[in-house]
């Protein structure tokens, strides 16, 4: 295996051809078989990434009509759905927060409050990184916090083997990972999950019964809090304080806050627009669609000139729209052709499976997968499969709208899991042995989710089993 990239690149089309040209199994439609063939290619490429994630989506989107899995008009209409535009809005919010300096100001002011002793400073980095994810997409928070944390490390003159340096960096990374489960603005994967869930119901002619911004956040918040709480405990246990004199760090923070001066009119405008946008997403998101509200306020940001188009080009990788649009189209083709339902029945002939065991296994498998694969790709791969599994084992599919993105956001261990962990590994301060205890956070967070779904959700009118 001298060139794994080439191997993965070749394996995708080969698997696709294998599935497409084998005898059509009983119960599977031709369109379903072709959809599974496209999925085989996309899963291989999304998991092993011989090409960028958006490129795989483009290929999948093109293959759907080419292979007769879906009409071109249907495939391309799915590309322009609400979820894609909401995700664009999410990234534009992050762009304006970074461009105006508002996110940096909020994090510096938050950190200044915590800079009393080593423990509080590290916990402050954890909490500020986590809380900022409520509004700014978590990867952008990591990119914003990295230079701030490194400045603190420099001001304290910490070396590469310093426990405090490692704790500060890991606090930032774990804070953003835990924070990625806070709201629909924290990551794009939750929006993709909700869209695939809505599409699954629509294909079955059921009322899509959309899950709103607030409803999703209320379901995810306890898990996110559990993650950040456990992260604080694990970090304190792994990296006990070194008894450092914090004055240089405090001076550094004071200097940075002072350099920023008072809040500018542009920052106030940004704050007002984003606050109004969140309020409108909560109040009107279900009626008008999340994408509509996000687009409207993005347009307002441009109109008020708090954001320039050049900023949007600099801060956002527009491949995000291609990635999510393609994933949604592929998910829809799989559901509408009955391919995934056939697959689930073929793999799990008996439906006499404990739904809680099914939910637990799915959550653990998703969390495991996300340590190795991008969390967006994980959702694109697992959601089309999990939704029919839910039906098969008499579980409300709604539960996977939460469990899949939450589990896919519990990547606390490997540098391959999230950009935040890749960044802190890239500093050279951390090794795998420092992040492996992150599995404790994953286990605790998943346990909290399962307990919540099993005992608390029925109390608020969301029974997961009939």
């Amino acid at each position, binding site marked *: 295996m001298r060139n794994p990239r080439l191997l993965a690149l070749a394996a995708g089309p080969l698997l696709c051809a294998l599935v497409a040209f084998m005898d059509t199994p009983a119960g599977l439609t031709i369109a379903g078989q072709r959809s599974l063939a496209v999925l085989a290619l996309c899963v291989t490429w999304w998991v092993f*990434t011989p090409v*960028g*994630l*958006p490129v795989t989506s483009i290929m999948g989107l093109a293959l759907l009509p080419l292979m007769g899995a879906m009409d071109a008009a249907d495939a391309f209409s799915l590309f322009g759905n609400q979820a894609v535009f909401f995700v664009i809005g999410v*990234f534009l919010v992050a*762009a304006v927060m*970074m461009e105006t300096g508002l996110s940096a100001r909020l994090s510096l002011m938050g950190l200044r409050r915590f800079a009393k002793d080593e423990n509080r400073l590290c916990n402050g980095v954890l909490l500020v990184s986590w809380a900022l994810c409520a509004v700014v997409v978590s*990867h*952008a928070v*990591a*990119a914003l916090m*990295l*230079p701030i944390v*490194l400045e603190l490390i*420099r001001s304290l003159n910490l*070396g*590469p083997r310093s426990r405090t340096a490692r704790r500060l960096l890991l606090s930032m990374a774990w804070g953003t990972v835990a924070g990625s489960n806070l709201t629909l603005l924290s990551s*794009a994967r939750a929006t993709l999950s909700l869209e695939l869930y809505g599409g699954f119901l629509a294909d079955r002619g059921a009322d899509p019964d959309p899950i709103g911004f607030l409803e999703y956040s209320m379901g995810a918040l306890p898990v996110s809090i559990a993650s950040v709480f456990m992260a604080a405990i694990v970090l304190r246990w792994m990296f006990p304080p070194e008894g450092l004199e914090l004055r240089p760090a405090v001076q550094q923070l004071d200097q940075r806050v002072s350099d920023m001066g008072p809040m500018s009119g542009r920052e106030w405008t940004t704050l007002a627009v984003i606050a109004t946008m969140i309020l409108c997403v909560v109040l009107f998101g279900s009626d008008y669609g999340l994408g509509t509200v996000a687009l409207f306020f993005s347009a307002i940001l441009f109109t008020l000139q708090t954001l320039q188009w050049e900023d949007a*080009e*600099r*801060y*956002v*990788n527009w*491949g*995000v729209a291609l*990635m999510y649009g393609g994933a949604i189209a592929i998910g829809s083709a799989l559901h509408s052709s009955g391919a995934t339902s056939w697959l689930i029945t073929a793999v799990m002939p008996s439906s006499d499976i404990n739904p809680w065991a099914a939910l637990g296994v799915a959550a653990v498998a998703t969390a495991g997968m996300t340590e190795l694969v*991008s969390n*967006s*790709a994980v959702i694109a791969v697992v959601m089309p499969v999990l939704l029919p599994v839910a039906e098969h084992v008499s579980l409300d599919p709604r539960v996977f709208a939460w469990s899949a993105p939450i589990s896919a956001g519990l990547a606390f261990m490997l540098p391959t899991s*999230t*950009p935040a962990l*890749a*960044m802190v590994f*890239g*500093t*050279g301060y951390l*090794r*795998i*042995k420092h992040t492996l205890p992150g599995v404790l956070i994953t286990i605790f967070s998943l346990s909290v989710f399962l307990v919540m779904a099993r005992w608390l959700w029925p109390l608020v009118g969301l029974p997961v089993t009939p």
Partner: protein
Amino acid sequence: MSDIRILLAVSTSRYSRALVDLAMSEAEKLAASGTKQVAIDVLYILEGEDLLHISHRAGDQGFLGLSTTADVISTLAAEHHRMALLRIDEVKAAAATKGTPVSVMEVEGRFVESVLEQAGKVHYETILITRADRPFVSRILFGSEADRVARMVKKEGLGHVIIDDED
């Protein structure tokens, strides 16, 4: 110009204080065994390829724009440089106590290729490298760059390699 040279190869992801001490004692041993002067060349490798991977991850998986990704990479590069200076100072301080002359080279590139290139330019009596701290399974599956350097150096007859695990 010294007669006997030792190469101490370190990088962003490969450094061990024990290896520095080992380099000093190796220099002392060689100096004691003959009349020739012994010097240490420190090759500090800034592994730029790692930054490229992070750039891809932030851009292709995190969907951060070019400007944000570039900021992250320049921040990391600056930190790598600071780390290099700290470590080089540590080596210089250790060498000063033993009276061993030290010269430092900072290069950007891949670990294996950079070490082999330097070992091909100058004859080294001993080449000291650190094995990166990775899980055993990962080493079995994907191999070890330190072991690769040792194999290649032996094959090319470029010197004697000592490998130490990262501390």
